[in-house]
């Protein structure tokens, strides 16, 4: 069973990799958007899926990353990809500062506070805070990224750039999931009192999860700014956060494959439903409800962690 699953993964990866050859620019660009959202959703998955914190304000961190890139690139001409680490760092710092006092809030109270943060960030951006965000116009004229002197501008080129980062993300987050840290997060999600009782510093771990998710969202912000070449506050509104939230839950909390599949659905379906024109979002709403009813734990919930008894090393994933 286990091998079969790997064959499917590999097949999917190959299909995705060669797809730009078969697709036109539009569908390639749809895949680019999906790729960006895969990264974002995976970063939210650490917070919401693994650690179980109700976080509906992920767009705030994404915005910090995107604006950091946009401002420094347009003002000082620093190449966009160089700004990626800094964008992630600032998003992480921002998360650290705001999450510290609120990390202990339970479920729904945390939810509204994170919604509050994303709205505050959006309002601050619109009101041109510090005079550097360009207000409602946003920032335009962001450079295209260059790699080894090659300028990335067509959807096909962006495809490989974005999906390279998606691959890196999947690899690293998979490592994280199976680390001691990942197991601790899952314990907190299932029962944080018991986790604390077993000696896990829950506040500390929750904070780290939050910061990791935010750093990654910051990285995505850089890619987004580079791809769009214009960013405006409306790209980071509450609805974006809701979309990400839905992706993680629809795909399966804590499951990388699930979240990827969820992104394909949540971002891909409205594009497919374009033939319904004005009714496309209506169909989308119905599909959302139906999906949740038929797969309440998400399309692909993570398999339960199982451990071998015969004294083998390390945890092993069940198929």
């Amino acid at each position, binding site marked *: *069973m286990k091998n*079969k*699953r790997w064959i*499917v993964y590999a097949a*999917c990866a190959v*299909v995705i990799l060669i797809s730009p050859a078969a697709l*036109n*620019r*539009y*569908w390639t*660009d*749809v895949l680019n*958007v999906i790729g960006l959202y895969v990264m974002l959703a995976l970063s939210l998955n650490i917070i919401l899926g693994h650690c179980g914190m109700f976080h509906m304000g992920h767009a705030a961190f994404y915005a910090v990353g995107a604006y950091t890139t946009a401002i420094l690139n347009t003002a000082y001409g620093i190449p966009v990809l160089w700004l990626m680490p800094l964008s992630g760092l600032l998003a992480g710092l921002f998360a650290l500062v705001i999450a510290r006092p609120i990390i202990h809030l339970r479920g729904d109270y945390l939810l509204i506070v994170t919604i509050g943060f994303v709205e505050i960030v959006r309002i601050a951006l*619109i*009101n041109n805070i510090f005079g550097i965000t360009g*207000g*409602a*116009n*946003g920032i*335009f*004229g962001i450079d295209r990224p260059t790699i080894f002197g090659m300028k990335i*501008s*067509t*959807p096909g080129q962006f495809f490989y750039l974005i999906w390279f980062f998606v691959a890196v993300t999947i690899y690293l987050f998979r490592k994280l999931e199976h680390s001691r840290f990942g197991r601790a997060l899952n314990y907190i999600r299932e029962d944080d009192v018991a986790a604390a009782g077993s000696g896990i510093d829950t506040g500390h771990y929750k904070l780290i999860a939050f910061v990791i998710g935010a750093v990654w969202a910051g990285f995505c912000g850089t890619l987004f700014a580079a791809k*769009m*070449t*214009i960013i*405006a506050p*409306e*790209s980071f509104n509450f609805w974006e956060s809701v979309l990400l939230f839905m992706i993680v839950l629809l795909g399966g909390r804590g499951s990388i*494959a699930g979240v990827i*599949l969820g992104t*394909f*659905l949540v971002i*891909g*379906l409205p*594009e*497919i439903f*374009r*033939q319904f*024109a*004005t009714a*496309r*979002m209506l169909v989308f709403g119905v599909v959302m409800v139906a999906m949740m009813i038929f797969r309440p734990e998400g*399309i*692909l919930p993570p*398999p339960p962690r199982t451990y071998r008894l015969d004294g083998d090393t390390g945890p092993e994933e069940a*198929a």
Partner: protein
Amino acid sequence: MGKRFITSVAVVFALLLCGQPVVAADTVRVGLMAPLTGAWASEGQDMKQIVELLAEELNNQGGLLGKQIEIIAEDDGGDPKTASLAAQRLANSDVVAVIGTYGSSITEASQAIYDEAKILQVANGSTAIRLSEKGLKYFLRTCPRDDEQGKVAAKTLMDMGFKKIAILHDNTSYAKGLADEAKGLLEKEPVEIVFYDALTPGERDYNTILTKIKAAGPDVVLFTGYYPEAGLLMRQKMEMGWNVPFLGGDATNNPDLVKIAGKQAAEGYYFLSPPVPQDLDSKAAKDFMSAFKQKYNAEPGSVWAVLAGDGFNVLAAAIKGSGSTDTEKMVAYLKTQLKDMPGLTGNISFDEKGDRVGDLYRVYRVDADGKFVLQP
């Protein structure tokens, strides 16, 4: 688990593949990018109605270059991300040109895509100055720019003799741009700006804001936002028993303004706008009005949708005039040869940047019957 997984993946990919566009027969394909869903759906749906009507009429007269015209409408959802996808989709559907869209930041997200694909874009509701300052060769617009309107707004206020002016916008890029333009010009004049702030669009209750503006004691309020809020402001202003004149920008030119405010509250409201077809004597405008009424049994709504209709008209003129659907030739024709074409919103010509030239703005006043009366 394995089987279910494979099935899920297969279903998703099957879904993704079934949406491929079909390349159709021998027609002249014109793209329309409009917000058919989302917060600005009403504008987008109006745009589609008007453009489809004009295309139908032209087809009945034999179409262009002996071919029928086909309108390919794509939804930009009123947000930049969806717009860039809509643009990619149109760029791939063999369109000779694209009309649209509404909203400067939405248009901006699509500009580079059309430029790279060498597709002529005629925007209709995107007034931000910078859109035509980037040197994009294939970009034109039928709407005037914010600086033009800002100039007219400041001049109108001065001509009316107001001394203490309150400026209210709504923090959208259009309204803020216009408010800033007007503010910059008014600061050079011997008037006092007693209030400058933004409301949050989409709310229902603006009493707090009106109370605050009233306390600042202006002679006139310049509101640069959109008609839904303008209607509510007028209505709540009347309920407060406050009798201050309002001057609005062209985004308030919509018959729904009077519907929302009520005739009594809307009376005396001034706004700036390019002339609407209702007020023009030209044959083009009159024919359009009667055709529109016949088909949809209503008057055309906002001026922006009408400007999309003008976008269609100039495209048709470009194809006819240059005798081809080649982008370079059409652009060259529009920028150099097209002079004072009678459109739905007055005569149309373009300058080298692709902006519409000429004094477009008129001052309108709402009368006691809720009609928009062109001021001399």
